[in-house]
């Protein structure tokens, strides 16, 4: 076997500094960033604001925090929103940015922001961090005793403001879920040959944590592709100098699979980080993430149950954080109050269940873990083979050939030849394997499981089954008995 490696064209230091400035110069607030001052400010932050330290402390003490989503355009409201989260026990706070900011349309944002203040209404679907700039965002950060993480945008304005996570490595989220025309080649160029900001800060003693998303499964779909991508994200991030990262493990609603994946994902990430020589990159914890479609707006009971179910999975798996939405997820951006009540519920579960130190052993976890592990290794082996030892080259070829593939992508450059459905117990199975290099015996396993459901429901599964399964958790009916359209 070829020596494992990550294609590494480390950008020249002068060029790096120039590019960083260019990026910041796209909007006047960029001037507020002085790199050295930013380092000093980061170093002045108390431990309770430093993401990786907060995660580590939670883990040490056997505690948990919700990692929610929250962003609203009016600064004062944003502060109040985050304060209320903190009061519900949340110590990992997001700064979810609006979609225009994510698209770099700062001028448009500026106009709308004025309109927001004029009308008092939150017209943007997030906090426009770039337009606010460093001084104002520091006000937000300094108002609440918790760690902050930018979502979707922020760049060095976020870092200078005291947010303590930062993307690193090849991020599949943007490519797989947010882009229409980006090619995998472009993604790699963008994230690898681009700026190695995380490493620059690490060299100066500032560790900015990275959350790994992998390729988000947009529908009930086995997690192997997601985990493969998390591993790719991890090793490419580490290669850029990232020292702290953790996986967000999508929970698809089948408890056996969810628990198996929560166990498997960090284990494999650790293994590959080590294999590639990044023993010094630490995994700060594991964060199960509530993923599939939520119960509809009017079904508050279902929304609560779903939320506490995922909290429970987090507690039973002894995770230190859980990525949870609110009971208003199906309705729209949550209010302060719906956040509070949602995360109080989660905290109740965390405190009551997590602290009972329950040791559970769920039958079939081993099987699910083994099946997914074989799939992950098969896909990764193929990628490394395609890349002739280089995981980045391999990734490019893998996406182009469908060796890496995921359903429902908005991206026209994705093969989209795979499909998932639930089996008779609600576990996610492949219905169409596309070009994924899954070993034949494992394919057979999936087919058998799907056949069980077909027998139960008395009809074939197909594309329409896959569509219907989008709603299985949403409608509170994870399995096929009785056919939930009856």
């Amino acid at each position, binding site marked *: 076997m070829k020596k494992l490696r990550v294609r590494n064209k480390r950008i020249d230091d002068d060029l790096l500094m120039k590019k960083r400035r260019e990026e910041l110069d796209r909007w006047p607030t960029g001037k507020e960033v002085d790199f050295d001052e930013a380092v000093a400010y980061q170093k002045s932050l108390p431990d309770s604001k430093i993401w990786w330290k907060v995660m580590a402390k939670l883990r040490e003490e056997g505690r948990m925090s919700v990692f929610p989503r929250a962003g609203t355009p009016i600064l004062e409201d944003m502060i109040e929103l985050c304060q209320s989260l903190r009061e519900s026990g949340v110590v990992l706070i997001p700064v979810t940015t*609006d*979609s*225009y900011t*994510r*698209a770099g*349309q700062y001028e*448009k944002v500026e106009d*709308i922001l004025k309109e927001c203040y004029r009308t008092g209404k*939150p*017209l*943007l*679907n997030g906090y426009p961090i770039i337009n606010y700039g460093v001084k104002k965002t520091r006000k937000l950060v300094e108002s609440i005793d918790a760690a902050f993480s930018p979502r979707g945008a922020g760049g060095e304005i976020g870092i200078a403001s005291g947010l303590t996570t930062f993307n690193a490595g090849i991020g599949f989220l943007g490519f797989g*879920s*947010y882009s*229409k025309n980006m090619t995998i080649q472009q993604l790699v160029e963008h994230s690898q040959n681009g700026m190695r900001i995380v490493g620059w800060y690490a060299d100066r003693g500032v560790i900015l944590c990275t959350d790994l998303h992998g390729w988000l499964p*947009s*529908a009930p779909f086995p997690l192997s592709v997601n985990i493969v991508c998390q591993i790719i994200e991890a090793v490419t991030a580490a290669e850029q100098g990232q020292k702290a990262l953790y996986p967000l493990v999508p929970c698809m609603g089948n408890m056996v699979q969810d628990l198996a994946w929560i166990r498997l994902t960090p284990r494999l990430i650790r293994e590959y980080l080590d294999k590639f020589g990044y023993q010094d990159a630490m995994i700060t914890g594991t964060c199960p993430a509530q993923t599939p479609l939520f119960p*509809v*707006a009017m079904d508050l009971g279902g929304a609560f149950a779903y939320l506490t179910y995922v909290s429970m999975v987090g507690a039973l798996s002894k995770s230190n954080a859980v990525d949870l939405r609110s009971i*208003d997820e*199906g*309705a*729209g*951006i*949550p*209010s302060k109050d*719906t956040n509070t009540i949602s995360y109080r519920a989660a905290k109740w579960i965390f405190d009551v269940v997590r602290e009972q130190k329950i040791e559970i052993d769920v039958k079939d976890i081993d099987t699910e873990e083994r099946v997914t592990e074989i799939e992950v290794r098969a896909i990764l082996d193929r990628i490394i083979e395609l890349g002739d030892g280089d995981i980045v080259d391999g990734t490019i070829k893998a996406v182009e050939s469908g060796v890496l593939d995921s359903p*429902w*992508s*908005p991206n*026209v450059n994705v093969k989209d030849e795979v499909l998932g459905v639930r089996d008779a117990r609600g576990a996610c199975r492949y219905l169409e394997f596309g070009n994924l290099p899954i070993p034949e015996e494992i394919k057979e396993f999936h087919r058998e499981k799907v056949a069980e459901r077909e027998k139960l429901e008395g009809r074939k599964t197909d*594309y329409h089954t896959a*569509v219907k399964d*989008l709603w299985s958790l949403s409608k509170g009916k994870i399995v096929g008995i009785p056919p939930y359209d009856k």
Partner: protein
Amino acid sequence: MKKAATIITGTVGMDAHVIGTKIVSRTLKDAGFNVVALGMQVSPEEFISVAQETNADAILMTSLYGMAELDLKGFNEKRMEAGLGDMLLYIGGNLVIGRYDPKEVEPRFKKLGFDRVYPPETDIVTVIESDLKKDLKAKGKM
């Protein structure tokens, strides 16, 4: 029998929520329509120019991310200028930010030129059967 009506689909503005419009497109196709699926993040201008090119009978627009009104500023004027006044305009999804009462939001989108405005999680099959076919027939396009 007339030739199948042409329907354009897609999410407007910067909205990346593509699953809904994919399902809408497929369901329309299965129902025998001629579908032009533009996918996600379609600008208002693109909707208009494609409608002109394809001589479309309707647009079924999607927006989930809450900023549809901002995206659609001036859209109605432009489509009128483009001579598309007779084309059906539907929109569905999470149309504003936060939990809302669809009854309050509907008139705002009607003003933006939409013939029908749907609340979150609307069943598309029902819409095709009870609204779209009726409206197209009323316009003599089916």
